[in-house]
């Protein structure tokens, strides 16, 4: 009988578990520990314009996931306006519309962004070259500027740098000044680049600085080296590269804001930086999960809370597997300690322990009397269930009267499991004596406490909830331990006398 398939399955589970966990950590930026802080930017765009009483359509470019930033949530405020989000080749846009509006209008869009370590460049398609035609005398000026920069450059990036530098304040020549009288700087530069056969487009970005208000978007030039590779240039200084704090807002070559049916339109931005625990950041990620990013976070909050508990049960099972197979602790009912540990999570450890001992000991006394009544098994266990409920109710009411609110959490104990525990311990007492009851009861309690400590650990809670792949790793571990043929820890003690002679 070959064990190869077994080890293949275990290896596969391990690899899958580790793989999906790493994927979630790297791709989705889910941190390993719950305490890690993540920087969050809150950016608000305010669109101002004066409506003329006609139908109004407002088209605002929106940022998307990009290098260094991940969008967590976005909100809009626009009373009376219809709103739709559009997505096309040129990027995401929000479109507000209203049949009729007059006077000053304000529309709000706010987005929460998480700062990420993602350093890969965004995929942006190279725009086609545009035909450029100039009126006299600008055509001569343009070709002279291009020629001068062309001579001093070797490739699209160096050409763009030379060209921009020729338009900077201190080096402006006659031709440059002439062109600037007629054209705006950034569109002009894009035009010249296009004329020289260099693919380029104007993009708009926002320099993020904490606490700034009423900021305007700045324009940048995106120069393409080939189909995929591009670099950003500052049209004012000719600096190449994207500053760390630059959030690209519009990269499709369109205007940031387009308003029909209004005048004096403008968009301003305010921004705020905050640090928040990584776990909270994970929770507020957009639910754009694919199957691979399969996450509990796409469920409604109530179901999430339920799953948080459900996903901890395998941890409890793992503790039981370890304690029973590797240590050899006896428990009363294989997984009863896990259920008790789940109750401890609700009650806290001390209250839980006291509550458990109270219920079981009072239950044992009453069960002892029930055994004189000579009842059939099912009826007796049912009677014990009722007894347990009565004990729980009495203790709850008593502790509330005495002002001990912690006592109320006693209701979280699984009553039917407790009833069976009492029944089993009572039989154990009759047949094997109180010593065995203490061994098994103590073993169950130790197991429950250890399972509780594991399941209540913030790190373990964070990891089981955020990395579903961990469940596969637990599965692999349980399978491996299930294959263990060595001695249990307590057997080293049990068989000790054999080695003595």
């Amino acid at each position, binding site marked *: *009988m070959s064990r190869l398939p077994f080890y293949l399955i275990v290896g596969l589970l391990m690899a899958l578990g580790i793989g999906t966990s790493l994927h979630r950590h790297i791709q989705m930026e889910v941190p390993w520990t719950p305490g890690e802080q993540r920087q969050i930017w809150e950016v608000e765009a305010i669109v101002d314009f004066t409506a003329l009483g006609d139908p109004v359509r407002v088209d605002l470019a929106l940022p998307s996931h990009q290098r260094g930033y991940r969008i967590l949530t976005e909100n809009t405020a626009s009373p009376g306006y219809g709103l739709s989000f559009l997505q096309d080749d040129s990027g995401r846009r929000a479109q507000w519309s209203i049949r009729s509006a007059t006077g000053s209008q304000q529309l709000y869009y706010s987005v929460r962004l998480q700062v990420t370590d993602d350093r890969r460049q965004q995929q942006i398609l190279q725009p086609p070259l545009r035909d450029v035609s100039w009126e006299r005398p600008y055509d001569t000026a343009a070709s002279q500027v291009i020629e001068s920069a062309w001579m001093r450059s070797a490739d699209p990036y160096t050409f763009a740098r030379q060209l921009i530098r020729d338009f900077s304040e201190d080096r402006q020549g006659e031709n440059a000044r002439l062109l600037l009288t007629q054209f705006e700087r950034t569109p002009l530069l894009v035009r010249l680049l296009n004329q020289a056969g260099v693919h380029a487009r104007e993009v708009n970005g926002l320099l993020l600085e904490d606490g700034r208000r009423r900021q305007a978007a700045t324009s940048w030039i995106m120069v393409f080296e080939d189909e995929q590779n591009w670099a950003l240039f500052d049209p004012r200084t000719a600096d190449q590269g994207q500053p760390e704090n630059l959030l690209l807002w519009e990269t499709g070559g369109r205007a940031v804001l387009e308003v029909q049916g209004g005048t004096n339109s403008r968009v301003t931005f305010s921004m705020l930086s905050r640090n928040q625990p990584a776990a909270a950041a994970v929770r507020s990620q957009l639910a754009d999960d694919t199957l691979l990013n399969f996450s509990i976070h796409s469920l409604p909050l109530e179901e999430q809370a339920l799953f948080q508990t459900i996903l901890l049960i395998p941890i409890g099972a793992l503790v039981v597997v370890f304690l029973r*197979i590797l240590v*050899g602790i006896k428990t009363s009912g294989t997984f009863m300690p896990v259920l008790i540990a789940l109750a401890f999570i609700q009650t806290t450890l001390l209250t839980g322990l006291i509550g458990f001992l109270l219920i079981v000991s009072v239950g044992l006394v009453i069960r002892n009397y029930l055994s004189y009544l*000579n009842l*059939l*098994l*099912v009826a007796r266990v049912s009677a014990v269930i009722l007894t347990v409920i009565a004990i729980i109710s009495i203790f709850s009411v008593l502790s509330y009267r005495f002002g001990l609110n912690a006592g109320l959490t006693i209701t979280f104990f699984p009553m039917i499991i407790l009833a069976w525990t009492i029944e089993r311990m009572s*039989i154990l007492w009759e*047949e*094997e*004596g109180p010593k065995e009851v203490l061994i098994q009861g103590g073993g169950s309690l130790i197991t429950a406490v250890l399972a509780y400590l594991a399941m209540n650990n913030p790190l373990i809670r964070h990891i089981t909830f955020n990395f579903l792949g961990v469940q596969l790793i637990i599965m692999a571990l349980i399978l491996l331990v299930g*294959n*263990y*043929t*060595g*001695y*249990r820890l307590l*057997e*080293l*003690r*049990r*068989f*000790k*006398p*054999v*080695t*003595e*002679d």
Partner: protein
Amino acid sequence: MWALPGQLSRRGIIGMNRRNIRYIGRYNNRRLYPLVDDKLKTKLLAEEYGITTPALIGTVSTQFGVKALGGMVAGHSGFVIKPAKGSGGKGILVIERVDGDGFYKPSGARLGLEDLVRHVSNILSGLYSLGGTPDVAMVEGLINFDEALSEYTYEGVPDIRVIVFRGYPVMAMMRLSTAASDGKANLHQGAVGVGLDIATGTAVRGVQFDRSRRDHPDTGHELASLRIPEWTSLLQLAAGCYEMTGLGYLGTDMVIDRDRGPMLLELNARPGLAIQMANGEGLRPRLDLVEKQSDRLGVSERVAFSQRHFARLGVLKDLPEPELAQPCPSK
């Protein structure tokens, strides 16, 4: 206080995990478990295979039938009530003496008929059975155990556990009930275990509560002189249970009746490991040796093999070669 794993494995001790995976999991087909988990089935099967068992007085299988209990036990001076699917000796009630309305346990405690009825009723509702499933109560005749053994035990019947692996008896011990074990022959309840030499049926050493013992704690009788009568036929009876059940790793519990000789009491598909303590020796080397043997041999050949190879040092140097042509006992 603690042994090193190396010390134990050098002595061939096997642990629970190894027993479960390597022997029970591999050699005991789950499908066959009901044959041994249900003592009634074992008993009927044993009769079919000509293996002696204690006499069956009757069975109770419905709560309604409990009323017939009084009539059933009438006229018997002693009997045993046990659940057919009980495990670890749970729910076994021994009545040693009947005196009018009183039924006396070996400890001298007196029970009334209503106590017996309650006990049977508990058995039927599954209180002692594995998984709490409804059960059948069996009433068996009391065993008249050999007087030669009476001074080694307190109250209950001493039984002999033989581990039979692939049909070969590999290790044996006698379990002597004590006051601590309440007349029950279960080691974890305080019975004394005495390791037996497979070759001769003589005592090797004794343990109680996993600790070494030289004498019986209640009778004070020293254990070294213990010698089981009719040893070879007992081993053959035990070895025959392999053919009967098909289970490769089997614990057979035998008793010796004064009149009827060795008898099969019950079988266990998950025999415990305390037998290693009683023998002061691990099972591993013996199981390894048996795994290398052919499984074509008949019962008496296997017993002869075991008696020759598993003899304790110095005991059996001049044992004659077993006659290999011995016929198997008829079914």
